[in-house]
């Protein structure tokens, strides 16, 4: 009963917040900064302090000027620096950027350790390497590694990553605040940077929107999707016309989870959150009403629904999603898509560069990190060539204010402008993130999906999740 009340309260709150979200200026996420939220690692005060501290030091203009030259090959290696630069990553994206945009200092050889993230193999290999860092030969030591939003805190909070401000990296004014907070440890030390920001958007099929709503104009579609109630109405309309709103009930999971004001974890105790319960309630409703198919987020069946004859009206994701993960759409329905904010702002994913302690290539770490945040030439290519949303407002503004710029895939819509507004509002409250977020955000909803598909009942789905959780973190208990 208590849970039920909480749900209602949250739904009401969400609805209110939603209506305020006419444009993109709402501050739903501000509500997340409640100080009574349990800190992931126990120390609430430290976390809160840090939240403030991250805005404090204004970056030195001259330093930014200097950082502009990073990645141009101008750096001469200091005496005693190693020649082999070891990078751990799980796929070839960053490698591609480094090889195409970055000019390495003379005499440094990049060695890429790519471990496919199958069954968490990446973190396993990385952890083993980091924990054996002391005894590894200089040229075998990890220098830099990549981490995702869902587990960055695991690395940022240990001594195995180092303070990058000591190496000459700063929080530039051109960077989005949240990307720095995410890479900051509980005691306020900056451990890394990211080259991207990831506001997640409603991606809708223009032709279907025209059929269902009579318009495909982003502003008008946004108006029609500005609250969850309205989204429900549109979903019913879409169903009447033979479409489905989503291909997967998991589609909206991140929107809810990302706007939660409590963490799943309190100390070593797990509890589902009100946001999670609301998502489950919504997912049940969508599946029951036939507003959503029951596929997984990454299923081929979902891809098929993006094709010429596809019936999926919307999906949700950031720039990396619509540019890299909608292959079928890119090929068959290119230009028939548009984006709008939807009922609630949120972000999804992101990749950070973290500096490993014990690296013998500190100058290269700094050069690389500055190149992929402050070097505007490189960041421009990240936007124009790699089609990512760069973590540099100078570059972003240049495109946002350029009316002639537009993405062919989105029917010529200038997505940068809309996403820039959202990126500014993204908040990162360290108290809400734990090192087990990946398990919470992927394993948990995937188990619920089995229930939604009718494979098992809800209790079994939850017990399946708890078993999975006990394998990831044996110390975690639950009620």
């Amino acid at each position, binding site marked *: 009963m208590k849970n039920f009340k909480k749900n209602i309260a949250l739904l009401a709150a969400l609805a209110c917040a939603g209506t305020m979200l006419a444009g993109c200026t709402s501050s739903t996420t501000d509500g997340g900064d409640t100080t009574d939220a349990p800190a992931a690692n126990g120390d609430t005060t430290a976390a809160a302090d840090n939240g403030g501290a991250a805005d404090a030091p204004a970056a030195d203009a001259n330093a930014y000027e200097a950082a502009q030259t990073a990645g141009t090959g101008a750096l001469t290696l200091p005496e005693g620096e190693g020649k082999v630069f070891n990078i751990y990553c799980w796929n070839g994206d960053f490698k591609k950027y480094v090889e195409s945009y970055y000019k390495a200092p003379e005499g440094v050889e990049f060695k890429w350790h790519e471990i496919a993230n199958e069954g968490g193999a990446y973190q396993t290999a990385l952890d083993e390497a980091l924990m054996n860092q002391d005894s590894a030969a200089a040229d075998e030591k990890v220098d830099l590694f990549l981490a995702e939003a869902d587990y960055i805190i695991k690395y940022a909070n240990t001594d195995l990553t180092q303070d990058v401000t000591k190496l000459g990296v700063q929080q530039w004014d051109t960077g989005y605040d949240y990307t720095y907070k995410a890479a900051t440890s509980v005691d306020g030390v900056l451990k890394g940077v990211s080259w991207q920001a990831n506001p997640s958007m409603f991606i809708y099929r223009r032709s279907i929107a025209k059929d269902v709503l009579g318009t495909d104009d982003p502003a008008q579609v946004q108006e029609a999707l500005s609250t969850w109630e309205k989204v429900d109405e549109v979903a019913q309309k879409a169903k009447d016309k033979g479409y489905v709103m989503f291909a997967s009930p998991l589609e909206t999971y991140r929107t809810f989870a990302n706007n939660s004001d409590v963490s799943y974890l309190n100390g070593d105790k797990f509890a589902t959150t009100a946001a999670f319960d609301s998502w489950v309630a919504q997912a049940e409703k969508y599946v029951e009403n036939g507003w959503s198919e029951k596929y997984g987020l990454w299923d081929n069946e979902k891809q098929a629904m993006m094709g010429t004859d596809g019936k999926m009206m919307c999906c949700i994701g950031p720039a990396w999603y619509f540019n890299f993960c909608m292959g079928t759409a890119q090929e068959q329905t290119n230009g028939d898509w548009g984006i709008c904010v939807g009922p609630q702002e949120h972000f999804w994913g992101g990749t950070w560069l973290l500096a490993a302690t014990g690296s013998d290539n500190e100058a290269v770490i700094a050069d690389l990190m500055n190149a992929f945040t402050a070097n505007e030439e490189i960041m421009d290519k990240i936007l124009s060539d790699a089609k990512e949303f760069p973590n540099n407002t100078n570059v972003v503004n240049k495109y946002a204010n350029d009316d002639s710029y537009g993405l062919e895939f989105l029917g010529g819509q200038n997505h940068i402008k809309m996403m820039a507004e959202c990126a500014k509002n993204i908040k990162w409250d360290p108290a809400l993130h734990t090192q087990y977020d990946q398990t919470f955000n992927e394993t948990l909803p995937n188990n619920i999906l*089995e229930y939604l598909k009718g494979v098992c009942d809800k209790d079994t789905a939850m017990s399946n999740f*708890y078993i999975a959780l006990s394998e990831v973190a044996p110390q975690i208990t639950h009620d």
Partner: protein
Amino acid sequence: MNKRKPIKSISYAKWGYIFILPFFLVYAVFSFYPMVTTFYYSFFENYNQGLTTIGPNFVGLQNYVNLFKPNEGRFELLEYTKNTMIMWVLGVVPQFIFSLLLAVIFTSVRLKIKGQRFFKTVIYMPNLIMAAAYSMLFYVMFSEVGPVGMLCKALISPDFVVFQSVGASRGVIAFINFLMWFGNTTIMLMAGIMGIDQSLFEAASIDGANGRQVFFKITLPLLSPIFVYVAMTSLIGGLQMFDVPQIIGGTDGAPNRSTRTLIMWLNNVVTGKARDYGKGGAISVLIFIITGILSFIVYKSMVKEDPNAKKNKRRNKNVLL
């Protein structure tokens, strides 16, 4: 011979040790030592909380006790053993039927099958392909957009999704295993049939026995030692089932953990985020024991069925242990 024997054993015994030394040395370092450490760790609490290693702290039999305690009201050890055995049986029964049929067809003097070499080559081919790659192909075929998946929808029910059905998912995994191994089994059984003294068949045919009688009265009984061997190796292989269900059902063995095998469990505990060496060690010991028990049961049951058990006992022993 008899006269020379003592001399031989005196002068050559050391060569026996020298010849088997590399095997035992390497086994000791790379298999036995790791196995002993694995078992050793089963008595310790030793896992990672993020990047912090807990332990190793000696906990006695606690890891074993935990495995025999229900987790979330469920008995994982039993659940995964059951999954593994069901999928093994589902695959091994058609595998034996097909292999036996094929072996009889290939060795039959009466049928004189042409193109034997081609057929034998072809049925062995699936065994050459990476199990994981092979499974991927089947996953696509049986998925909702795949041909078999669509066929099932059309034939059974519009709501039928292969990989949402426990039985069908296990069936697909068993089918892949069957396909990968029936060629191997066929050749083994052929070897067995060809090893049977030809004069027995001749005598039978002179006595006017028909094909069916020859098969059930001569071929099958005399084949039983090989059958035991094949069944045992297949069982041991089946208990190690990993690649195929891992691709079809994912790490957790979807749907509803019904395709999770013992080794998938062990793999996830040991190489997963927690790196739980304590629990992993205990699981290893239990898998070791389960393998032993099941091998014994299969061995016993198959030998009992054999009317010539006594005669073959020594031979079986030699083959098996």
